[in-house]
């Protein structure tokens, strides 16, 4: 383990930017966005520097740590504010700062007309800092700080235009559902401390083998809940669609490339827990598989381009979670898909933003059409991302997704067949809805309003798109060449070199996958390219489509199961407090006052009746004496 003093700058630079811009107020309006972009870029620079340093060291020496100060130190509960940069976190650092910087650049132009652009950049910097803390923290508790930090940044950015009540509600929904996940993380930390006496990654990794499977399973399930909350996995997925209320760069950075993948990071980071807790691992796979299908199905019915992409994100993260749940063989592929997805999905989101930019913030794809001619660069970059997500060779998604499908089949037995089929089916549906997006947006006839003047975006916007497109094309190939990423991450994961039995040969899997993709594309073509698309969503659709349009009833479910009963409980408790508890108190008071006013009747002002009472008192006194004397 190497120590370093420069890790802190990774976080400190964007954090300083956020603080400066937020505290500086309007004074920094003029140059705030530039400063933020520069700081994000310099953080990327530090990341690259760390990578080069890391490459120059032997495998054992590669992880770098930095202890900043004693954070919480009570009895046996010792948590340092410490940073850890290893092979896993450097991937994230580069993704976060790299894509982050690109999106900063994109936003300069995208947000140029917004009067609060400075605040937007401050929040972006805050997000970068929090996300870096999340992946750099060396204990679950430091991770927790970043974890909630990104939740806060996400809340602030989703609700950036919170003057619209719906957007404000969306941001609140995201934060609260994330908090449910955070609760899981809290539980996981508590279990770790109660059973292992430590909450640092290293400590838990060391103690995991001495700890009972039950405890680890519990911790694993709690980590899974945390991951589900942050990564919009079933059953905590409902917030992601609404989170598209935020400005599009936010969707690209936070809700596609980085924050939502934090769950994958958490599970791969906690590999020592899951490896020892097969039940928890199985649950991870199940959650991944369900979400994969869930997101894909929602994606087929969405007319809002951002929501379609969000559903796709959910589905793709499902792939990653599934891979992560497959154990040591899957971690690297999960991360690889995460990285490639980071490129192509961010690219596509930026493309969507570019389209919206040209179409006066119209998001309904049914009002697009034939934009290819008007936005050639956007079309090209978006198209490259499209090919990548489909998994068409040699684009990035081909390498990463195919590996996941393959690993899924190799999981063995019925499990393997089911998982493999699900992933394959998912690939087909992905092909269908992504093709639908392409057709509706870029080809066919124009369906936009009279006063729309679609135009290509300025270079500040298309440049990041282009760079991301390059990533979408090449990253898969680069990362998988000679198993580069797998080998890079290998020291972290306890990979038992037992020879997997291949259920299907890799080439067969690829073939199957490509076939499925082709089928998906074909259906989409038949459905959307051969016939005219209505510019208003048709109502006479199948029940299935209706349900898919309503996000598979996820909101209705949450409303009936949690929100309504919660509201009823709240009103009941408020009434209880008023009537029962405070009522009891007031009744006591009323009894006192009632007896007082009853006795007050004696105080009638007539001195003679007072005298009579005194006389009565005297009688009572004498009677008492008489009794005593007798």
């Amino acid at each position, binding site marked *: 383990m190497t120590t370093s003093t420069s890790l802190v700058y990774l976080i400190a630079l964007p954090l300083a930017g956020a603080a400066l811009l937020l505290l500086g107020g309007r004074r920094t309006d003029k140059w705030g966005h530039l400063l933020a972009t520069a700081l994000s870029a310099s953080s990327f620079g530090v990341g690259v520097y760390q990578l080069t340093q890391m490459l120059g060291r032997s495998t054992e020496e590669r992880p770098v740590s930095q202890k900043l100060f004693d954070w919480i130190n009570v009895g046996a509960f010792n948590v340092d504010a410490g940073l850890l940069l290893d092979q896993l976190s450097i991937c994230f650092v580069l993704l976060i700062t790299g894509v982050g910087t690109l999106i900063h650049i994109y936003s300069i132009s995208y947000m140029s007309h917004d009067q609060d652009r400075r605040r937007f950049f401050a929040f972006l910097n805050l997000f970068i800092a929090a996300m870096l803390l999340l992946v750099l923290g060396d204990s679950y508790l430091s991770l927790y700080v970043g974890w909630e930090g990104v939740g806060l940044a996400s809340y602030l950015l989703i609700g950036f235009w919170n003057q619209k009540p719906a957007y404000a509600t969306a941001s609140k929904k995201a934060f609260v559902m994330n908090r449910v996940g955070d609760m899981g993380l809290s539980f996981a930390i508590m279990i770790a401390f109660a059973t292992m006496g430590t909450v640092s990654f290293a400590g838990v990794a060391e103690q995991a083998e001495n700890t009972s499977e039950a405890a680890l399973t519990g911790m694993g399930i709690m980590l899974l809940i945390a991951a589900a909350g942050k990564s919009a996995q079933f059953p905590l997925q409902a917030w992601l669609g609404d989170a598209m209320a935020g400005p599009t760069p936010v969707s690209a950075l936070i809700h596609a490339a980085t924050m939502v993948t934090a769950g994958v990071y958490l599970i791969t980071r906690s590999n020592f827990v899951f490896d020892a807790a097969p039940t928890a691992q199985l649950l991870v796979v199940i959650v991944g598989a369900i979400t994969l299908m869930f997101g894909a199905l929602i994606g087929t019915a969405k007319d809002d381009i951002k929501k379609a992409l969000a559903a796709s994100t959910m589905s793709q993260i499902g792939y990653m979670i599934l891979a992560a749940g497959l154990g040591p063989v899957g971690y690297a592929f999960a991360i690889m898909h995460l990285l490639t997805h980071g490129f192509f999905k961010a690219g596509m989101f930026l493309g969507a933003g570019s389209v919206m930019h040209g179409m006066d913030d119209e998001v309904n794809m049914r009002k697009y059409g034939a934009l290819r001619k008007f936005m050639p660069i956007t079309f090209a970059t978006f198209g490259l991302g499209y090919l990548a997500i489909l998994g068409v060779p040699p684009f990035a998604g081909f390498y990463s997704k195919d590996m996941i499908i393959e690993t899924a089949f190799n999981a063995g037995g019925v499990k393997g067949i089911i998982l493999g089929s699900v992933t394959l089916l998912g690939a087909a549906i992905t092909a269908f809805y992504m093709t639908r997006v392409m057709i509706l947006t870029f080809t066919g006839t124009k369906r936009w309003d009279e006063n729309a003047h679609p135009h290509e975006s300025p270079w500040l916007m298309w440049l990041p798109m282009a760079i991301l497109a390059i990533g979408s094309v090449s990253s898969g190939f680069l990362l998988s060449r000679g198993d580069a990423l797998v080998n890079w991450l290998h020291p972290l994961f306890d990979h038992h070199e037992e020879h997997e039995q291949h259920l299907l040969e890799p080439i067969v899997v690829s073939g199957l996958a490509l076939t499925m993709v082709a089928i998906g594309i074909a259906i989409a073509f038949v459905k959307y390219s051969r016939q005219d698309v209505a510019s208003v969503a048709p109502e006479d659709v199948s029940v299935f489509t209706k349900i898919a349009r309503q996000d598979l009833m996820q909101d209705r479910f949450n409303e009936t199961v949690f929100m309504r009963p919660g509201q009823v409980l709240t009103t009941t408790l408020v009434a209880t407090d008023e009537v029962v508890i405070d009522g009891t108190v007031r009744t006591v008071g009323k009894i006192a006052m009632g007896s007082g006013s009853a006795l007050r009747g004696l105080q009638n002002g007539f001195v003679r009746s007072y005298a009579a009472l005194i006389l*009565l008192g005297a*009688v009572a006194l*004498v*009677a008492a004496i*008489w009794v005593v004397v007798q």
Partner: protein
Amino acid sequence: MLQLALEVGQTAKPEAVMFWILGPLAVIAALAMLLVKKAVHSAILMAFVMIILAVFYIAQDAAFLGIVQIVVYTGAVMMLFLFILMLVGVDSSDSLTETIRGLRSLAITAAIGFGGLMISLLGHATLGRSAVGLTAANADGNVQGIAALLFSTYVWPFEVVSALLITAALGAMVLAHHQRSTTRPTQRQLSINRFRGDSLGTAAGLSGPGVYARHNAVDVPALLPDGTPAADSVNATLSARGDMLDYKKFDLSEINTKVEEEK
């Protein structure tokens, strides 16, 4: 009852005779004090009870107190009462109907209870014990004995009580002193008021009481020119007290002019 009769018979000493005559009288007078309507009568009965008590004191070898009782109570205090009655007692007779519901029955029940219990207690406490008597204590004379106690053991309370007396006197003066809230009207003002009043009827001053052949006193109203009585010619206090007489008694037409033959 039998024992009481026996005692009356056996101890027909002068004191017992005195007691059995005056005691019932005192109780009757006290009860009458409650029952009579006129406060003045109450006062007279009160004085009567006090004098009886003074006699009781003297009979019990408390000569000094007996005299003081007569001088202070029947002399000073009762006179004070009578003065105040003269000042205040315009509504000379009280109504004895009770206005506060249930008070009278309550008072009587309580009184019977109280009296019964007291007498029962006294019976238990003192029956069968003979008095020591004050012969020894009064050896140097009753006044001297009291004086010796008063100026030795009780000198401090005595001084305090004297201070109390002075304070009470001052207090009474302060209370009775009437602070004028308006300036005293001048002759001029009174005169103006008379003429600027509601009617000119009183401008020349109120008429005096009536003068009749058979009665010439302040308690009969004068007659106005139209033959009706002038109510304001009689002092308001007298009319309020109900002491105003009817002029008709003295009207000439009402007078029986026939001279009756003496039988």
